[in-house]
């Protein structure tokens, strides 16, 4: 905006580049710039009006911040899903810690029975959060872990079950059907529970993030996204397409590798950070 005396194509192109470089993607970027171009003409905007206009329009995609809201006095099931390495296990540790601090009685299900030392990794997080972890042995059946964990949770009076699942690429049909099976078990064994199914998405991910959300939504009916690694330099702009095309809100963000590095998603701050 600085250095432009009027809202012309040069300014609009500069703004479009900021969006593209934030992984907002071609489609949404074009939509935003089209809106600014029309509005600038209709309302005779000057360059100083643009940041607020663009900020408001971008916030429009994201709606009001929707936090992860568990129901007190009920059994809650929070399952994390996503492709490999995005931060699911770490996020489960953070969530367990948060729920504990909020006065819930959490339990963790170690349903990644495949990856080397996945169970040990989760057990360390469980210790840090002071939350018990239900586990079988490595190579076991992940659906069986989930079944046992629901039973254990109900028996112990736990009020939130956190399920850590194995990372899986959404184009692997057999892995996605394993996840579907887990979802069915949760629906069947805890039909009255409040369900939160969170896609854990790495902020460094580009446009493939939209594809991930599409496929995971189809298979396990996502209720939200946790956007991780926002403490890096990546902006996570793919969430605009995820909101626009799939209606899935970002509910929390990961800001580091420690237990407390999880925050509620704040759309205003997120949009502000795009130009920061």
């Amino acid at each position, binding site marked *: 905006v600085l250095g432009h005396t009027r809202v012309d194509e040069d300014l609009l192109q500069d703004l479009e580049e900021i969006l593209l470089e934030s992984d907002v993607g071609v489609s949404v970027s074009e939509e935003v710039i089209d809106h600014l171009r029309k509005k600038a003409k209709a309302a005779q905007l000057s360059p100083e009006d643009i940041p607020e206009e663009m900020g408001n329009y971008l916030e429009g995609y994201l709606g009001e911040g929707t936090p992860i809201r568990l129901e007190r006095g009920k059994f809650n099931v929070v399952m994390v899903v996503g492709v*490999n390495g995005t931060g699911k296990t770490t996020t489960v540790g953070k969530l367990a810690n948060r729920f504990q601090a909020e006065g819930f009685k959490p339990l963790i299900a170690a349903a990644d029975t495949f990856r080397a*030392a996945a169970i040990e990794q989760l057990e360390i997080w469980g210790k840090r959060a002071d939350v018990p972890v239900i586990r079988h042995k490595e190579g076991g059946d992940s659906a069986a872990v989930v079944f046992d964990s629901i039973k254990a949770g109900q028996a112990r009076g736990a009020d939130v079950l956190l399920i850590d699942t194995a990372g899986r*690429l959404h184009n692997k049909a057999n892995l996605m059907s394993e996840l579907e099976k887990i979802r069915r078990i949760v629906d069947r064994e805890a039909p009255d529970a409040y369900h939160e199914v969170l896609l854990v998405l790495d902020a*460094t*991910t*580009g446009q*493939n*993030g939209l594809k991930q959300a599409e496929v995971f939504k189809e298979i396990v009916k996502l209720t939200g996204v946790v956007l991780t690694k926002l403490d890096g330099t990546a*902006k996570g702009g793919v969430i605009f397409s995820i909101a626009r095309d799939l209606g899935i809100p970002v509910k929390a963000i990961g800001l580091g590798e420690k237990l407390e590095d999880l925050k509620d998603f704040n759309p205003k701050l997120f949009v502000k950070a795009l130009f920061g």
Partner: protein
Amino acid sequence: SLSEKIQAVFKKLRNQGKITEESLQEALREVRRALLEADVNLGVVKEFITRIKEKALGQDVLESLTPGQQVVKIVHEELINLLGGTREPLATGSPAVILMVGLQGSGKTTTSAKLALHLKKQGHSPLLVAADIYRPAAIKQLQVLGKQIGVPVFALEDEKPLEIVRQALEQGGHDTLIVDTAGRLHIDEALMGELHGLKETFKPQEILLVVDAMTGQDAVKMSEAFNQTLGLSGVILTKMDGDTRGGAAMSVRKVTGCPIKFVAAGEKLDALEPFHPDRIATRILG
């Protein structure tokens, strides 16, 4: 597909009876769009388009009977050139030290084991070195993988990476050390300093940046930073068994000038293949 879109641009303009520089511009806009949708970094895209335009005009594409085909051919060739070139083997030494670096979750630990298996199959005697002292159960993870492939893993309790690598080197009996390091942000000065220290002390024969193929625009910032701090010798692209277009490959290659030495396409430890620029080019172009 992109080539269909480019052909369509010229067909439409031919039907209007004129192929001008404007039609080339329109074709180039399709190329730009395709590359951005494939996650190629914006700056890299702009430079690439400029090159394509120069070549197209230089080859009198507009005079050709099949300008669309010509442009597609130039785009493909330029992309393959950029992704480059000869198959470079891993450096050797006595022993060779290979440092695996990259952002959190990119696939370093898994790829370290894959590399160890690859070298073992070639008749080498690799040693895996567990230098990630931060991530919960990172050492255990490498030990489990090492056991799966019959490659020893060197690990020390309560020691810093510098001391771990030093003692690993004192082991002897291995012609290659593969050092798995903790994932880190390129903006984390302390952790980047730790890697710099490892480089200065041990002068590794290879410093390989492990990059997740689904990385978006940030690929340029982070690979540039790793390269500036460490002087990378190569790149390994992981999770190529996904359906991401993989534009990060083009960005990282352009910005660091480093060869992409391997492509990892699967969670199993034999899922490591040499880099094929033509295949990646086709995938990026969609």
